[in-house]
């Protein structure tokens, strides 16, 4: 138990260091990008060239610069940023001024989670089951399945998304071409709105599921084949244990590395699949991130990347703890440290 505590203490320290480095990168990298967000905001605030008085423009500009603290040196800005982050204040968006960043992120992350969480879980379960079945049955099923899985796992997300879009939305017209809900609707709780969301949900959802299935199935298949040939399988068979029981041992053990895949997918999910979301114009965090990068919306970029970082770190920590619980070999190693 003491070794355990020391192990996780050490780990936690490293996670904090990583988090700090990530925070710094999140803050500085967007600010090193070319482009002037203030100019964009000013022109927006003043109605796109309606005002041409240079002094008036300058006054508005200065007001914005002061409000966002852009007149301070960068290190100072960073300290202010850190203080605000600790307080849970991510500032206001440049582009959608004066909307608070937390509000923007909160909304788009809901869409992303609602899309990706079920998609990843369904894809993971389907993929692992397929891989396990292919490994167990071998022969025809495996031979037919493998090339398909290989193909699916190597299709790039945007390619599959475009094909799906072209086939089911443009050609067959079964599903809408994009968006999270019909463009003439305002989000509210009603039957019509829910149905609209559900219809818009299908294409991005199945695209994500397919992409997840391929990689997971291939991984599970090779792990299962490896475990099926393990010595303990042969030994258990010779003791008269039923195959159905042995299969349970095998798949449980083969599953262990797959859990890493799941946790990483869940961690990375918050980043949203920018490509898929763009193709389907899905109002998730991927699109929010993309548009804020285009517009130099520093606070939104920093907050989005920070959330992605934190989720990946949490996923990592989660794997580590779960692993210790599931695999006595890892547990022994953790206690030894």
């Amino acid at each position, binding site marked *: 138990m003491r070794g355990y505590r020391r192990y996780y203490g050490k780990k936690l320290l490293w996670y904090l260091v990583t988090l700090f480095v990530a925070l710094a990168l999140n803050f500085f990298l967007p600010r090193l990008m070319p482009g002037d967000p203030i100019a964009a905001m000013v022109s927006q605030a003043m109605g796109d060239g309606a005002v041409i008085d240079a002094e008036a423009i300058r006054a508005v500009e200065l007001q914005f610069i002061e409000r966002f603290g852009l007149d301070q040196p960068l290190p100072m800005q960073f300290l202010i940023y850190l203080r605000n982050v600790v307080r849970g204040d991510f500032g206001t968006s440049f582009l959608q001024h004066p909307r608070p960043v937390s509000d923007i992120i909160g909304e788009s992350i809901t869409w992303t989670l609602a899309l990706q969480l079920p998609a990843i879980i369904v894809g993971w379960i389907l993929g692992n089951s397929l891989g396990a079945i292919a490994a167990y049955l071998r022969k025809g099923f495996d031979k037919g399945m493998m090339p398909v899985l290989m193909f699916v796992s190597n299709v790039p997300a945007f390619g599959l998304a475009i094909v799906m879009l072209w086939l089911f939305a443009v050609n067959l017209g079964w599903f809408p071409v994009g968006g999270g809900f019909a463009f003439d609707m305002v989000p509210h709780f009603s039957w019509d709105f829910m149905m609209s969301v559900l219809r818009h949900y299908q294409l991005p959802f199945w695209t994500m599921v397919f992409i997840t299935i391929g990689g997971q199935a291939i991984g599970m298949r090779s792990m299962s084949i490896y475990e099926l040939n*393990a*010595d*303990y399988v*042969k*030994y*258990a*068979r*010779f*003791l*008269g*244990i*039923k195959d159905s*029981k042995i299969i349970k*041992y095998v798949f*449980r*053990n083969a599953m*262990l590395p797959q859990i890493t895949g799941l946790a990483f997918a869940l961690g990375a999910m918050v980043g949203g699949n920018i490509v898929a979301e763009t193709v389907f114009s899905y109002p998730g965090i991927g699109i929010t991130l993309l548009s804020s990068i285009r517009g130099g919306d520093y606070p939104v970029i920093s907050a989005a990347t920070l959330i992605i970082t934190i989720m990946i770190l949490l996923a990592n920590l989660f794997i580590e703890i779960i692993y210790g619980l*599931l*695999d*006595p*070999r890892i547990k*022994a190693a953790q206690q030894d440290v």
Partner: protein
Amino acid sequence: MGKVILEVKDLKTKYVTRFKESVYAVDGVSLQIEEGKSLGVAGESGCGKSTLALSLMGYYFAPLHYISGDIIIDGKNISGMKPDEVRKNVLGREVAYIPQAAMNALNPTQKVIKFVEDVVRAHDKSMSKKDIYDMAVQRFEVLGLPKEVLSKYSVELSGGMKQRTVIAISTIKSPKVLIADEPSSALDVTSQKMVIKMMRELMEKGYIKAMIFITHELPLLYNVTDDIMVMYAGQIIERGTAHEMVFDPVHPYSKGLMGSIIVPEAGTRDVKLEAIPGTPPNLKKPPPGCRFAARCKYKIPTCEHGERSPRIFDNNRMHRCIHSVEYLQERYKNEREAGSKGKVSETGAE
């Protein structure tokens, strides 16, 4: 002569490779073990020893396939039985197996007691967890294993402890025949001794009635088993009591095998170690005639033709050489004398 517990008649099995080639790893093996006796099987790597162990279980799965022959355990022929019947009624009860690599024989993510439960339940669904635990504790204690082992994972056990645990689990249903495939090969000498002691105890306490012990370590066999068989290229080429086989081997292969042992006793240090040149033949296409002929220094032209059938001599000893026992013994004697005069005998096939 005691009651015969295990009788094997002309057993043939093969491996089928992924290219549909057959490898005849056990090619007509017959043997007999009486109650309370143990039989050692010796041979080089690739001679079919381990395959023999697997084949004797009567439970075949790819790539190993049964061809023909009978396995009779305590009067019951198991070679005609359906696989599921064998699994349920024979494995673990009539015949049990100790694998070559006991290090990895236990599921790494399962506690020992859980596995014991699965083993017992595979044969007897009615036993409660409590009963199984009590039975396991009792058996482990008799065999000198701490009961704490039961609540551990295999990674938490040392190599020797793992091996002894595997032996205890294999024999938990008191099988009639125990087949041990190199149970002590990977262990240090102290652990080896404990494993051997444990196997003797199993026999003395009547938990098992007969034992087959497979190893490449001949001195070990001499200490453990009553009889020794030497296996070469899927066949038994010589059989006798442990003492006969170690001190008076007849077949040139057995002779070579015994000659390649390092004996640490005084006075034997200056005896030259002799290796048998070459490697065992490819069993996809066993050579005609004597299978050892290509490596044998007593080869005569007729060796390579015709099947070598077993020849019985000296009251139940057997060998498969074309030469007579007297001829071979004479040759060995001459060589020994020549060797002691300082001449180094040339080894190698002619």
